[in-house]
C-alpha cells in the first residue's frame, strides 16, 4: 500500500483548501455553511467525474491518483477517505456508468411484444447509448478489463443485469410450466451475455463505437439463434418460447424473407470462414475464401439469390441485413489482406473492392440462377494481385 494515506493532515489541507480553486464546481474555501455530508457528496462527484474523464481519455493504466486529485480539485486525504485506492474509485465510476447505460435498456425490454422484438429494441437502445457516449462505452467495455481483480468481479455482477434479455423462460415468458431454469438455459444466457460483451469490447477497442448501431440486426440474429433454430437437440427446453420469427418488418413479405435470412447469412459466412481457416498463407486464405463463396453460389443458387439479389427488393430491413452480410464477408477477407497490404486501411479497402467485384461479376448469374456463368476464382482475385 502506498504511504500517502499517512501524510500529515496539514499537507492535505494545504492542497485542498488554500490552493486556488480550479473548478467551478469546487466548493469555496473557508466557511460555507454546508454540512459535512454535502461537502463529501460534492467531493465524491468531482472525484468520480475526474476519474471518468481521465480514464476515457488516457486509459485506466495511465491514470494516477495524483492526476485525479488535480483534476477534481480535492486533497489526497479526501480521496483516500472516499476510496481505498485507484481501482475502487474506478469501480465506482464503472458501476455508475453501467447502471446509467443499462436502466433504459432494461426498460425498453419490458412490454408484451414477442421476445425477439423486445430483444431487438433493447439492443437498439444499448447500441445507440454507447454510440452516443464513447467515454461510457470505453469505460464499461474496454477499460474495465484492465483495472484489476475487483473490477473484473464487479463487471461480472454488472453484466448479469443483462441476463433477463436472454432468459425468455423466466423473464417475460412465464408460460413455461416448470418455471425453473434448466442448465442449458443458464448456459445459453451466460454465453449470450458474454458474446454481446465481447463483440462490444472488440468494436469499441477498434474505434468503431459510432458504428455500433449498425450491428443491431446482426446481434439480434446471432443472439436469438440458440432459442430459434440453433438448439434443435434441446428443443424440449424451448418449445414454449415464442420466437416464431415475427420480426418487426412492416410488410408480411419482408417478414417472411427475414425469417430465413439470418440462417442463410450465417451459412455463407460460416462456409467462407471455415474454408479460410484451413489455410496459413494469406494469399491462400483469400483464394480459399473466394472459392468457398463461389462454391456456395454454385451449390446453393436459391440461397445465393435470396442473399444477394432478393434482399435488395425485400424492404429496408432486408437491405440492411444484406449490407451487413457483405460487410462481414469483406471483414473476413480483410484479415489475410492485412499481411499483404501497406496498412490496415488499404487492406480493408482491398477487401471491399474484392466483394464489390464479386458482386458486379456474379450478380446476373446469381439472379438468373445460372451457376455455370459464375466467374472463376482467378477472375475475381485478379483485382487483388496476390
Amino acid at each position, binding site marked *: 500500500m502506498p504511504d500517502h494515506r499517512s501524510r500529515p493532515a496539514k499537507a492535505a489541507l494545504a492542497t485542498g483548501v488554500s490552493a486556488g480553486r480550479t473548478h467551478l464546481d469546487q466548493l469555496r474555501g473557508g466557511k460555507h455553511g454546508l454540512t459535512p455530508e454535502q461537502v463529501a457528496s460534492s467531493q465524491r462527484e468531482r472525484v468520480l467525474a475526474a476519474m471518468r474523464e481521465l480514464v476515457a481519455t488516457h486509459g485506466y493504466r495511465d491514470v494516477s491518483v495524483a492526476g485525479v486529485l488535480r483534476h477534481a480539485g480535492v486533497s489526497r486525504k479526501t480521496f483516500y477517505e472516499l476510496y481505498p485506492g485507484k481501482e475502487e474509485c474506478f469501480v465506482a465510476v464503472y458501476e455508475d456508468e453501467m447502471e446509467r447505460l443499462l436502466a433504459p435498456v432494461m426498460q425498453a425490454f419490458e412490454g408484451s411484444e414477442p421476445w425477439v422484438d423486445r430483444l431487438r429494441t433493447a439492443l437498439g437502445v444499448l447500441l445507440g447509448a454507447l454510440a452516443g457516449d464513447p467515454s461510457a462505452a470505453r469505460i464499461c467495455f474496454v477499460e474495465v478489463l484492465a483495472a484489476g481483480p475487483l473490477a473484473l468481479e464487479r463487471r461480472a455482477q454488472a453484466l448479469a443485469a443483462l441476463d433477463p434479455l436472454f432468459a425468455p423462460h423466466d423473464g417475460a415468458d412465464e408460460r413455461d410450466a416448470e418455471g425453473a431454469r434448466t442448465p442449458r438455459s443458464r448456459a445459453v444466457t451466460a454465453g449470450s451475455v458474454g458474446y454481446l460483451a465481447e463483440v462490444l469490447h472488440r468494436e469499441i477497442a477498434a474505434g468503431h463505437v459510432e458504428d455500433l448501431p449498425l450491428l443491431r440486426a446482426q446481434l439480434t440474429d446471432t443472439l436469438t439463434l440458440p432459442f430459434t433454430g440453433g438448439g434443435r437437440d434441446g428443443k424440449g427446453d424451448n418449445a414454449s418460447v415464442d420466437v416464431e420469427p415475427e420480426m418487426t418488418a412492416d410488410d408480411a413479405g419482408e417478414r417472411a424473407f427475414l425469417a430465413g435470412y439470418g440462417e442463410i447469412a450465417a451459412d455463407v459466412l460460416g462456409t467462407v470462414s471455415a474454408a479460410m481457416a484451413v489455410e496459413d498463407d494469406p494469399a491462400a486464405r483469400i483464394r480459399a475464401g473466394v472459392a468457398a463463396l463461389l462454391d456456395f453460389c454454385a451449390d446453393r443458387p436459391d440461397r445465393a439469390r435470396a442473399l444477394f439479389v432478393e434482399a435488395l427488393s425485400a424492404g429496408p430491413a432486408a437491405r440492411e441485413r444484406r449490407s451487413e452480410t457483405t460487410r462481414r464477408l469483406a471483414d473476413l477477407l480483410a484479415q489475410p489482406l492485412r499481411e499483404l497490404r*501497406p496498412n490496415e486501411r488499404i487492406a480493408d479497402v482491398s477487401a471491399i*473492392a474484392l466483394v464489390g467485384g464479386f458482386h458486379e461479376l456474379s*450478380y446476373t448469374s446469381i439472379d438468373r440462377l445460372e451457376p455455370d456463368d459464375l466467374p472463376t476464382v482467378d477472375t475475381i482475385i485478379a483485382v487483388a494481385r496476390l
Partner: protein
Amino acid sequence: MAADEHRPEREEAAGGAEDAAAARPRRKLPPRRPDQLPRGRHGLSDAEVEASQRTRILDAMKALAGERGYHDASIADVIKRAGVTRKAFYKLFEDKEQCFIQAYERDLARLLTLTLEAFETQDEWADRVRAALSALLHALARDPTAARLCFIEVMTAGPRAIAARNEAMRGFTIVFDTGRLEDDRSRPPALALNMVGGMSEIVHREIASGRAEDLPNVLPDLMYTSVLPILGPEAAERELERGAPGGI
C-alpha cells in the same frame, strides 16, 4: 399544330383545373415555381412544354429520392414538387420506377461524361485514371443528392433499376480497359468490370456512411486499387503516397 399553339390550355402542367382557375381570377392560385412555365398563352410547342415538364419531374424525383429515399418519394410528392398534374406525369412515364430510372440515367450519363472527359486530358494511363476518378469524386462531392441517387437509391428501386444500374456501370470500364492494352494479355477480360464493381462498392460505403462530401479523400484508395492489378504493388504504393490533391 400551328393553330393550336395559341390556345391558353397549352401547358399540361397547369392541367385542366388550373386552366379553369385561370379563367376565374378570384380563386387563389398556388405560387409558381421559377422554372415552371408561365400560365396562359406562352407560344411554346408541345415538345417544348413536355421537355420542360420532363426536366422538372426528373429534378423532383432526384431531389426526393436523394433526400428521403426512393421508397418514401411518392408520385404525389413528385408532381407537387415539379408543379405538374398527375396526368402530365403519366403521359411521360409509365410508373414511379421508370421515372426514377430516367432520373438515374440522366445523372449517371452526366457523371460518366465528365469522368471520361477528364480521362482524355492526360497521357500516361495512371495519370488518366487519376484525373478521371478525381473528376468523378469531386462531382459526387459537389452533388451529394446525385451521389445518393446513383450509388444507394438505385439499388433499392427494384429489379429494373438494378438492371439499368448494372448496364450503366459498364460505361466506366473504358477507364480500366485501356490499361489492359498496355499490359500483358493474360489478365481476364472481366478485370475492368471487376474493378468498376470494386470502386463502386468503396464509393457506395462512403456515401452510405454519410461521407459523400468527403469523397475526394478516397482518391488514393481508389488509385491504389486501380493501379495494383495493372501495374503492380510498387506503382500502387506510389499512387497511395501521392495523396489526394485538393482533398485532405
